[in-house]
């Protein structure tokens, strides 16, 4: 899962980046409105953490333009402007959640997690697929109750597949959602992670759809 953080305060952006990375997300950071807008408009991001007061383009304008262009990823507004009037304006511009500064990082993480989950149509924080149970809050995989350790990249690949159970996910799509933009991407590494995951999961759960990509099935 790939998150875009648009925040002009560098220290806070770094803190957000660190906390989100630790939670298993690939994180892109933009420090001004224009960069943020282009990243959100052109890259495949699964959620956006958006400040409102930004240089070059304010958050509300950015959000309105994304929505007008048909970009429907969940957006969480993170701002110091805590009056309800602003909240109404933010939500009406197309935001999915609104957190005011100062905030508890845990709360922000929980809200981002919930946004991504709801965007995928999942009602619970725990994703299931056959014998697999992925607790997105704890970032933990269990197979029939037995905990299976995953590296951070393995977790990201599996989490993305589990959010899209039964769908064909291309390698490019996986790359886009697993790596941040400035990361040195190599789609061959995806094959490595898929290979490692196949060893940890019950056999046959990750199908290769030739020429298209991968599909997670419940194995029955």
């Amino acid at each position: 899962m790939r998150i875009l953080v648009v925040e002009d305060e560098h220290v806070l952006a770094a803190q957000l980046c660190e906390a989100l990375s630790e939670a298993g997300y690939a994180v892109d950071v933009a420090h001004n409105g224009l960069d943020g807008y282009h990243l959100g408009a052109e890259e495949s991001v699964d959620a956006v953490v958006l400040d409102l007061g930004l240089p070059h383009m304010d958050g509300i304008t950015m959000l309105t333009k994304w929505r007008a262009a048909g970009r429907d990823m969940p957006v969480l507004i993170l701002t110091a402007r805590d009056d309800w009037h602003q909240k109404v304006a933010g939500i009406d511009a197309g935001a999915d959640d609104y957190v005011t500064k100062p905030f508890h990082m845990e709360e922000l993480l929980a809200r981002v997690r919930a946004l991504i989950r709801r965007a995928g149509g999942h009602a619970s924080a725990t994703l299931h697929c056959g014998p697999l149970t992925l607790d997105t809050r704890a970032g933990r995989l269990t197979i029939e109750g037995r905990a299976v350790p995953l590296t951070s990249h393995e977790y990201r690949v599996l989490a993305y597949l589990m959010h899209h159970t039964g769908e064909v996910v291309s390698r490019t799509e996986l790359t886009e959602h697993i790596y941040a933009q400035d990361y040195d991407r190599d789609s061959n590494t995806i094959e490595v992670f898929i290979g490692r995951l196949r060893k940890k999961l019950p056999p046959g759960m990750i199908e290769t759809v030739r020429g298209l990509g991968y599909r997670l099935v419940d194995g029955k």
Partner: protein
Amino acid sequence: MNLRDSLRLRLLAGSLVWIVVTLTVTGFVLTDLFRQHVAARFEAELQGHLDQLAAVFEFAEDGMPRLRAELSDPRLRLPYSGLYWQIDRAANGAAVGVLRSRSLWDSTLTVPADALADGQAHVHRVDGPDAAQLVMVERMIRPASRPETAYRLIVAADERAMTEPVAAFVGLLVRALAILAAGLVALVALQLYLGLMPLRRMREALATVRAGRSRQLAGRYPQEVQPLVDELNTLLRHDAEVVARARTQAGNLAHAVKTPLAILANAASREQGEFSRLVAEQAAIARRQVDYHLARARAAAATLVPGMHTPLRPALEGLVRVMRRLHAERELEIDVAQVPDKLGFAGEEQDLHEMLGNLLDNACKWARQRVVVNASLEGRTLAVRIDDDGPGLAPAEREAVFARGARADEQVPGSGLGLAIVRDLAHLYGGDVHLDVAPQGGLRVTLTLPAA
């Protein structure tokens, strides 16, 4: 109403004075002119009779004075008719009433003693028969045939023949002038009504501004009033700008202070130990202080600007959309369907959002499944009721939650300032917040505000 306090009364009183004075003087002048005219006519008529008397006066062959012909006026033959003549011998054996008109019957006219040259005429006022006041004209003649004797020819008429037409004229004149005065007063009143109409329109426009139905004095006014209206509009605009600036500055300050606070708190939460605990604690305190004072700063700007009208229903619906997002995990049912469309609040939309937002947010935090909002108009007061089906509050706890920074439960997120800020804002608008028991058993919060 004091004369000093009312422009209309002043102008009306002024007009009344000149109307009464002018018409009174006019009345006196006209009456006097008429009286003089009637008197002149009256004396001319008597003079005419006297001339006629002198013309027919002669002496018979036996030397007795006589009239050659009867005088023409029939009143002279009617007893006490009010018109009389009489001839006295004034020299060579004076005698009163040598000849007299039939209308004198058995009385005579007494001439005041005076020395009258021949041919000279005098006018007197005397008592006549029948207790009437008479105007008398007399002339002394000395017939050419008998130069040794002198005769006083007298014609007299009842003064009432002169005074009665004057009295009738005065009566008519007074009525006519009274009608004229009434008409003029009515016209002056109409003129004042029309002339002061722009001021009344201005007052009504100001009332709509105060009631919140308009932000500016609308319409064109006469050039005498327009500068005042323009000044007022400038003042209103200036007030609105000051408030908007204050809000923007509050927002900027929030941004400037809260982002570093967020960074501090996040950095502290990543570390263990006394120092990070202290930083976290102080950052939390600073956050509350900033929240409180920002809310106060926003609230202070609230009631300064008259002319606000914020429809209740759209404000509520916007907030409900926010609540559905912020409390998406709770899957609450938030019902505002009962809120009538027409209700409005006489104040800033921002402030309405702030009050209702905090109250709805509280209700959503505590509700089990359902939040119901209703509203009604009670006189000039808008009453908004927000009910939840949560645990509610014991009567003893109700006042305590209004305390600055108080929270009923530290487990539910929030700065705990919500209710205090709502009450501060409501008080600024002359409204209030009451806590009670909702029909579903949870908390009912009733917010009363001035209606628009």
